[in-house]
């Protein structure tokens, strides 16, 4: 395959940028940036199949990242003996059984229609039963959760290998995506955007407040790595090893996505995206295909989020921000070229480097401006100038989104559609 000139130029520029970072910031820091960028690349690949292949709008990437991070923490963090040696696990299991029983009762009530119970009786019955059972479960969970918090801190992890956590994180992300997609995909695409935005905030609120499960704002660290850690082989080697793991993952995902894109499945997806009515008329199950791609993308986001949180080594629910974990990924995808995997990876690495470099740059610029202002006009800068300078980067992200949509809607690497003569 011959690379077009434009691709070669852009990728050489990216390589030059990486070299500059290496030369100016030292290799340990640069490898860290690259490793984080590679985790973001997995997230961006997840988004590019949702947005680029199918035109689905996901405004809740943050939620999938947080979920992936939480699941990997739950699976890989060392076992908390304080918790398992008491009778608390039994009590927690009891609450779980109550929850299962409640679900079973409500499900049973919904099946009353088989016994020809009329809807007028069924509906109030179901509503009253679910409200009562819900209160029952929640009130019995309360004391157990409090006991766990006071006696053991939190339930701790399961001590399993890290990759199990990553896979399960992806699977749970896919499960949530199935739940939302199932409801929203038959409707207009805007509703999916609203619903994903909501689920992301809910996941964050849950992880932040369920202290017994996730330690909430107290954060959990250090998370174990899938490769030898810095303490054993040094920062540079450990980070490089981590980077190679994520790089292999990206390569595998890239290969599989490439195959899927050229396969009949990918063709169907693009046909649905470009003309929904005609593909429906051709007998394609539009909603089912969309659900597939939405779930698949969210699985990738779960895995990418798990990898990102594991790399950071700390699970901090308040650290998940819509800006850093949703809209930054978006910029990567639409700038790189939605629907083009190569462009997406380019966008992820490029934008992430710019993003990390922009924080000292913004501080420097603002500092300079305030000292100039002070010297010339006697202007007193407000105390929280530094946080404000960082907030100003939000503006730049928004501006990039607007400009790209307006002037280069296809991004730097436009999707290549094969034309058959």
């Amino acid at each position, binding site marked *: 395959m011959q690379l077009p000139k434009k691709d070669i130029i852009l990728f050489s520029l990216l390589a030059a940028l990486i070299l500059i970072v290496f030369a100016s910031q030292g290799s340990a820091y640069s490898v860290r940036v690259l490793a984080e960028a590679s985790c973001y690349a997995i997230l961006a690949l997840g988004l590019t199949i949702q947005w680029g292949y199918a035109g689905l*709008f996901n405004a809740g990437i943050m939620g999938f990242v947080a979920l992936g991070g939480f699941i990997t923490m739950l699976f890989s963090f060392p076992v908390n003996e304080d918790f398992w040696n008491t009778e608390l696990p039994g009590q927690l299991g009891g609450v779980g059984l109550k929850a299962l029983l409640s679900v079973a009762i409500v499900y049973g009530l919904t099946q009353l229609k088989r016994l020809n119970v009329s809807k007028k009786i069924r509906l109030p019955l179901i509503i009253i039963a679910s409200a009562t059972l819900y209160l029952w479960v929640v009130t019995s969970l309360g004391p157990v959760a409090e006991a766990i918090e006071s006696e053991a801190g939190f339930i701790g992890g399961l001590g399993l290998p890290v990759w199990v956590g990553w896979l399960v994180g992806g699977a749970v992300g896919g499960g949530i995506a199935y739940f939302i997609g199932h*409801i929203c995909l038959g409707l207009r695409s805007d509703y999916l955007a609203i619903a994903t935005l909501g689920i992301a*905030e809910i996941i964050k609120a849950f992880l932040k*407040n369920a202290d017994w499960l996730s330690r909430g704002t107290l954060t959990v660290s250090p998370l174990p790595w899938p490769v030898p850690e810095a303490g054993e082989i040094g920062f540079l080697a450990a980070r490089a090893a981590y980077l190679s793991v994520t790089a292999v993952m990206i390569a595998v995902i890239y290969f599989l996505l490439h195959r899927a894109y050229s396969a009949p499945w990918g063709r169907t997806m693009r046909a649905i995206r470009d003309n929904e009515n005609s593909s429906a008329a051709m007998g394609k199950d539009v909603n089912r295909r969309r659900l597939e791609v939405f779930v698949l993308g969210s699985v990738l986001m779960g895995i990418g989020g798990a990898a990102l949180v594991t790399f950071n080594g700390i699970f901090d629910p308040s650290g998940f921000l819509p800006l850093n974990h949703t809209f930054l990924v*978006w910029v990567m995808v639409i700038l790189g070229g939605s629907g083009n995997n190569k462009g997406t990876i380019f966008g992820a690495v490029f934008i992430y480097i710019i993003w990390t470099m922009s924080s000292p740059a913004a501080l420097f610029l603002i500092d300079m401006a305030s000292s100039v202002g002070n010297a010339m006009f006697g202007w007193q800068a407000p105390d929280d100038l530094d946080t404000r300078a960082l907030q100003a980067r939000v503006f730049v992200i*928004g*501006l990039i989104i*607007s400009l790209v949509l307006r002037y280069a809607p296809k991004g730097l690497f436009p999707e290549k559609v094969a034309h058959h003569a």
Partner: protein
Amino acid sequence: MNEFIFFFNSVVINGAVIGSIYAMGAIGVTLVFGILRFAHFAHADMMTLGAFLVLILTALFPAVGPAIGLPTAFVMMPVAMVATAFIAVGIDKLFYKKLRENNVKPVVMVMASVGVTLMLQGLIRFLAGTGTQSLYIDDRKAIFRIDLPFESASRNLVVTEPQLLLFLFLAFAVIALHLFLNKSRLGKAMRAMSDNPDLAKVSGINTNTVVGVTWIIAGSLACAAGTLLSLDVTLKPDLSFMILLPIFAAAIVGGVGSPYGALAGGFVVGLTETLAVFNWTFVLRPLEQAIPSLDLPNTLAFVPTEYKITIPFFILLAILIWRPTGLFKGKIL
């Protein structure tokens, strides 16, 4: 009796307050949704922007309010509403108009509005910082305690001045909007365009004017909602995504494109939210005395306050499952 008043104060009044705010936001969202056919994500930050403009005006002229006898911020609100309306029209010209002319998919418009929301967020936080601010700079918040003519009622009904102003303003805005949509030529043109844009265009309706008027209404209502919310509590620059969800839920519950539906939807969402986080233990205390075996937990609420955001979400899901057109037969679009 006291229990009932407590319930009324904390559920009915508070629910109506937050419901009115949601309703005002949702009317703007539903108009934009109906006429421009996309979910406007920047609406919440337009609210914050409006409140922020009021804050600046209040800081500039703190003496105006006491002279009239109303909070300064409320007196300044109409000025800020005009400004926000112009900003909304300007945003449309700068960022949405070209996309609309290029006939992009609605989802791209949603994306563009997210870009706008991020820009507004960045600007507001850069200029105002991230801390909370009070719109009461020079004057104090008046609180009215209404004695009830019952013997058993020792508690008072409590309403604050901004809450009263909020209810009055909402009533005024709804009546004005109703007259505008039903009596004026432009209002009828708006409804026609919301019902069938192509037909409206061929019958000679100037779509650009209609779009402009939509933004003026949406922008000024957003400013009012943001200001009145900040008057009631405080001005928080980082509100945006937290309030966006209930507003969208209200618009969809009411039926997209229907302003009256949005009004009803706002109250449904607001009241459900306060009802769900209400602590029933206080109201049920008398029962505990009557039935000694009953042991009430300290908090008996359906949803802990931290999870308040889940309520609009589940309302949204429920309405999307059972009645996607909303209560008032809006469009699914």
